[in-house]
């Protein structure tokens, strides 16, 4: 379980070279944790998909199946008091901060056990207690908000870091531009992470963007370093995260990371994602971050039985979480009329 990761490169495969470099500094416990986290995210969202198909998740749902390495790598590198700001595609980003599976599934299903008791839904998972400061569903909005949380941390002198996840399509909206410039001139401890999964909803990012790397090719416009990473390699993600967190905590200011990844499924709901070429999809399925990492761990000498054990634990967890959420009642109707205001009420008159 503690074979040195130098041997990684020996095993060859299509693993980027910086992955093995990353490997050099990551200890085995962390690697196990990274693997477990990715696997948990996977079963969580597969279950969300099943529940959607059973019409138990209403409205909509946006899955990040295939993108687990980003959430897991960053989530694992965070300090408990750091802030996460993410999008509607934020189940994993919320989960990795320590939120329970049942409260996520419960929210998707509009149950009382839901994280927001059904008031927010799939697109708005939030757990302030865990530093998960919200899932934002209107493109671009949360980039300046994340900068604001970083400003607050800077002012309060807490060394907290604010991390903001968003998609490739988000790089073409005005708020992206304003937030990046703002974060740089105030030297804020905020990390902007673009998960470039090549598509917006049904339209390819390359068809509507003036540059090839929609985030990284704009970094210089804000005086930032251009950083593109393999978002399917959790070691790379984790190590990148460690570096930019350290920089932010030391007063080194913001970073912008573009992580190349891919969603296995469609954009939302029951979208089959047919607008994507078969070969492209296949190539990315072949680079599924979870089996890829499993293989690497085994190459590194971690016992397969240990991984099997983790997987069975997760499989059991998701079952009991599903049961809990399914058995949770509908939220009491009267909560619809509370908490517009901080006094708990919703009244606009006396």
């Amino acid at each position, binding site marked *: 379980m503690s074979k040195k990761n130098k041997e990684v490169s020996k095993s060859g495969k299509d693993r980027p070279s910086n992955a093995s470099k990353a490997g050099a500094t990551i200890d085995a416990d962390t690697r196990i944790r990274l693997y477990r986290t990715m696997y948990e995210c996977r079963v969580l969202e597969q279950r969300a998909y099943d529940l959607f198909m059973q019409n138990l998740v209403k*409205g909509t749902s946006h899955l990040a199946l295939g993108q687990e390495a980003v959430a897991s790598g960053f989530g694992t590198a965070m300090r408990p008091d750091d802030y996460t700001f993410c999008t509607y595609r934020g189940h994993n980003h919320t989960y990795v901060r320590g939120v329970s599976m049942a409260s996520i599934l419960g929210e998707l299903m509009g149950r009382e056990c839901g994280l*927001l008791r*059904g008031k927010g*839904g799939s697109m708005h998972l939030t757990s302030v207690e865990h530093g998960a400061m919200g899932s934002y569903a209107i493109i671009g909005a949360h980039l300046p908000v994340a900068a604001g949380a970083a400003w607050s941390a800077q002012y309060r002198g807490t060394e907290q870091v604010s991390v903001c996840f968003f998609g490739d399509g988000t790089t073409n909206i005005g708020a992206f531009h304003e937030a990046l410039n703002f974060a740089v001139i105030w030297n804020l401890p905020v990390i902007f992470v673009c998960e470039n999964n090549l598509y917006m909803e*049904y339209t390819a990012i390359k068809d509507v963007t003036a540059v090839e790397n929609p985030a990284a090719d704009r970094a210089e416009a804000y005086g930032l370093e251009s950083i593109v990473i393999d978002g399917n390699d959790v070691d790379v993600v984790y190590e990148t995260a460690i570096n930019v967190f350290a920089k932010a905590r030391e007063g080194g200011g913001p970073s912008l990371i573009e992580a190349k990844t891919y969603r296995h499924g469609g954009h939302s709901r029951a979208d089959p994602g047919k607008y994507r070429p078969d070969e492209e999809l296949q190539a990315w399925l072949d680079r599924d971050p979870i089996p890829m990492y499993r293989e690497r761990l085994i190459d590194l000498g971690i016992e397969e039985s240990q991984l099997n054990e983790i997987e069975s634990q997760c499989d059991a967890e998701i079952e009991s979480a599903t049961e809990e959420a399914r058995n949770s009642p509908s939220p009491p109707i009267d*909560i*619809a009329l509370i908490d517009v205001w901080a006094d708990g009420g919703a009244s606009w008159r006396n």
Partner: protein
Amino acid sequence: MAELTYREAVGAAIAQEMRRDKSVVFLGEDVAAAGGVFKTTSGLLDEFGPERVKDTPISEQAIIGAAMGASMTGLRPIAEIMFSDFFAVCWDLVANQIAKTRYMTDGQCSFPLVLRSANGGGSRFGAQHSQSIENWAMAIPGLKVVAPSNSADVKGLLAASVRDPDPVMFFEQKSLYAIKSEVPDGEHVEPLGVARIARTGTDVTIAALAAMVPRALNAAEILQNEHGISAEIVDVRSLVPLDTKTILDSVERTSRLVTVEENPRLCGWGAEIASIVAEELFWNLDGPIIRVTTPHIPLPSADELEDAVMPSPEGIVQRVIGLVD
């Protein structure tokens, strides 16, 4: 007469107008190759080609700005904003630029454009994808505001909006997209600014819009059958121009007014109509003016919660009984 879904009527209206007039162009996110996320515009790309039916980046200010610039230089653009909530990211272009520039330039510029969007609740999309923002638009001088309740009106009013020389905000109620109803064959254009009496009645006038029209009609049935109250339903259809004549005529006959709004309580269009009636028909009224609205809250996501807060036929019935009894 063919039966079309509300969704199909959108595409039919755009196609009808694009065939007629080469200056009509259409842009928005995922509208061309994918045919729109609500599948309202499937087939347009095939028929009219990529010069006229265009996918854009996620850049709502650029979308609306492009429509504005094109409309003032000879084109008649139709722009789609996917969910009406997203008008908030480009409200400057809509409310400050498009709406005001004709006036500010002493009439030099015209903006013959249509801004279409999926509006309203009932689809469990949560507070940021469910708003009814027709009152935001109504509050801005220089915008025409249309919100149809059925397929025939979608087709006729959207066609008229495209032909209109002024900017029109066209709100499609997303929970109605799948509903089928009859649409006249052939070219169909319905003038803007004319309300429709969707049901005649004698005891009370209920003014409703978009998804609230079927709910009001439903309430009227219950009122008639269970309470012997005869409600007249006015489908307002167009908030600007507002057909105050049809509304005032109806209230003059029934002496009572109830408005049914989907938007949250404060400063909804129902308040405007209430204030018009309270001024102009005060002496004809036989009782208070009642507004049924969503409470002044963001919409919750869970189905039971959302259903509990939006105006329902039962809720309308209760308020009307209280008024007429």
